């Protein structure tokens, strides 16, 4: 990983005083590229006990790129289920980047109902299904029924689902 004096100093400051992350996280892209890599390293610099509070704060006060960095960092941070509300927030948006990022490995904490609807939303808004972690293992008959119903609506209107949705239907037993 690239050495960068600003990032080295920022990581040290966050380790000493978690609150310092507020301004460093927002400004990271003006000192280090890619910004997301710097932001994720700052999140990892937080003391473990401070992680649940600050990921919530930084997500809720973040612009879209900051929110994305938080979502992508979740699987590797010391967290249990604390960040599930952030996934629900991202999945309520129509921002395709946020929706995709919410369905990484941390989405194992989503209940099956919420997860199915999230995958269906991906099909609906055109988020590539390759962004959904663990898709084949978790896809079930009920998801297949939901996607098939959407297919019927689309095809009745002379339209099609994205190609990856047809492939998904073929794979669900």
């Amino acid at each position, binding site marked *: 990983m690239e050495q960068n004096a600003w990032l080295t100093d920022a990581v040290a400051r966050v380790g000493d005083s978690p609150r310092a992350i507020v301004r460093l996280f927002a400004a990271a892209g003006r000192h280090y590229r890619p910004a997301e890599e710097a932001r994720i390293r700052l999140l990892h610099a937080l003391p473990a006990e401070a992680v649940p509070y600050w990921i919530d704060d930084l997500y809720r006060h973040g612009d*879209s790129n900051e929110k994305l960095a938080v979502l992508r960092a979740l699987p590797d941070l010391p967290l249990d289920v604390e960040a599930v509300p952030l996934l629900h927030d991202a999945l309520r*948006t129509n*921002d*395709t980047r946020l929706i995709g990022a919410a369905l990484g490995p941390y989405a194992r904490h989503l209940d099956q109902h919420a997860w199915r609807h999230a995958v269906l939303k991906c099909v*609906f*808004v055109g988020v590539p299904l390759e962004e959904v972690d663990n898709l084949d293992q978790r896809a079930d008959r009920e998801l297949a029924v939901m996607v098939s119903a959407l297919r019927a609506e689309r095809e009745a209107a002379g339209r099609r689902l994205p190609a990856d949705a047809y492939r998904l239907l073929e794979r669900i037993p």
Partner: protein
Amino acid sequence: MRIFDPHIHMTSRTTDDYGRMAAAGVRAVVEPAFWLGQPRTNPGSFTDYFDSLVGWEPFRAAQFGIRHFATIALNPKEANDPRCRPVLELIPRYLDKDSVVAVGEIGYDAMTPEEDEAFSVQLALAVEYELPALVHTPHRDKAQGVKRTLDVVRESGISSGRVVVDHLNEVTVGEVHDTGCWMGFSIYPDTKMSPPRMVEILRAHGLERVLVNSAADWGKSDPLLTRRTGEAMLEAGFSEDDVDRVLWRNPVEFYGQSGRLDLSETADTGPLFEGSSILRGGS
């Protein structure tokens, strides 16, 4: 013709507008925080509004190949409502965002003591966060408002070259020109300024430190009047390079002073709209 609209309230516009703007050559916009017609009654309404300016609206613009930046402030009209005053405490955190390129719109509406205070506090924030300032001038009692505005700007200590004084006209342009501040002109269908009048002002005062915007919002306004002004300039004998300076290089120079104007993803040629993705979710 490539166009950077330095002042437009896209929150109030439709996706059809984005499509027409992209086809007309608009590649970048700055959306200043302002009022929404209906007065807001609590700081939470501003949080959602500011979040949209650094969240959903840039995403929406990107679907049409348009880069969206914002300016953040408590506007003068709502600064008069004591229920909205705590908004001043919310602002600093937004001023650190990558896509926030100025503090604004600040300035005067009815020139009250409350507006005085919000104006000077937010000019101080511009200095502290090393951002330019976008200053609205009042629509009523404008000449007096501009004088008072320039006094407050002078007292604040911000460099005049980092301030744009907006919504100027034939009566108020001269005084602002002499201060070294940038001069903003909002081209409207019937009121503030028209393309032919704008051409006359450019003839009289030159192209330096001039920003031409549509200020399109929820009122009667037209996001393509920047383009119409460029066409009027060409018809009046200005060169393509003159038009590019006024409609692209000037706003890039002004907002570039923020150090955050990342235009790397902006294409230089051809309309970008491919009808792709606000896809209405494919529905």
